[in-house]
């Protein structure tokens, strides 16, 4: 089937085409899903190498399940996020205690000239937020990343994390409160407005 045509098809249809040996379906699926899964795993693990391993393993499991995929039971992307979540959770458990980075441990941005101040503030702000996010408890971080970075709706997050809707809302709310608290002392320097949580 032509690549242009494939690009318009839903994930589930592409998976069926892959299972029926369509050579281009896998490529279209990969281009569509891999950036999301890699970004998610990277945000949870904080390590590119590990995130790539998780993304590759999750995609491999998708290829393996293709022939037995039951249409309508789950969304492909949701299923993939769930697999990635479990793989990341396994790795985080293996690490035992993840060395939590304190906000003060964030790499300092080199002092530049006045013209670079806006860019430096933005870089500093991203670094501070990344560090604060990494310091969240694993489940809160998963919920916040799925909700506010991956843009999943709460019902899908509930499926991915295998929890109820109320638990999703609680985790995201607590996560955001923790982020706000972690960044509170540096709000003015980082360019946040007050009462943003």
């Amino acid at each position, binding site marked *: 089937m032509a690549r242009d045509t494939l690009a318009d098809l839903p994930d589930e249809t592409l998976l069926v085409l892959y299972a029926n040996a369509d050579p281009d379906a896998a490529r279209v699926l990969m281009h569509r899903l891999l950036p999301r899964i*890699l970004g998610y795993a990277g945000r949870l693990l904080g390590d590119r190498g590990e995130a790539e391993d998780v*993304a590759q393993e999750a*995609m491999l499991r998708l*290829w*393996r399940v*293709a022939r037995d995929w039951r249409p309508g039971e789950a969304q492909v992307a949701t299923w993939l996020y769930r697999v990635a979540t479990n793989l990341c959770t396994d790795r985080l458990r293996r690490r035992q205690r993840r060395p939590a980075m304190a906000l003060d441990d964030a790499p300092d941005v080199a002092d530049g000239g006045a013209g670079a101040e806006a860019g430096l503030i933005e870089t500093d702000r991203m670094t501070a*937020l990344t560090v604060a996010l990494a310091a969240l408890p694993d489940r809160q971080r998963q919920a916040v990343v799925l909700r506010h970075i991956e843009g999943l709706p709460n019902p899908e997050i509930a499926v991915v994390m295998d929890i109820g809707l109320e638990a999703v809302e609680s985790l995201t709310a607590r996560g955001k409160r923790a982020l706000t608290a972690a960044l509170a002392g540096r709000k003015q320097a980082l360019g*946040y407005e007050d009462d943003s949580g």
Partner: protein
Amino acid sequence: MTNPHATDAPDDLDAALAALPRLVPSADLQARIMADAAAGQGAAWARPPIARRRRGPWQRLAGTFGGGGALAGMSFALMAGVLLGVTQPEPVAALTSVLLAGSAPDSVDLLPDGDLFWAEN
């Protein structure tokens, strides 16, 4: 990345989270994943299921009698009957001699007077 599903009022923190830089898949990772996908299309787990083998004559016969167990039971009973008939164990022989004493024919003509029948017609 914007968040099209968000229902909360957007705020600075939401916007900052959505704007965090993401990992971009390397060419090497994409190549590995495509290699997995290609291998999968030739692997056993991606092939269609093997067609069911045709049933042999013994399986069809067993099916006729209600399965292999039933056929085995009937076979055992048949063999036991033949064995009893051939060996004639003493208790069986004594029983048949009592039951058939004086009335057992020495021989049975299964086609009586065949020649006469043809001769009359």
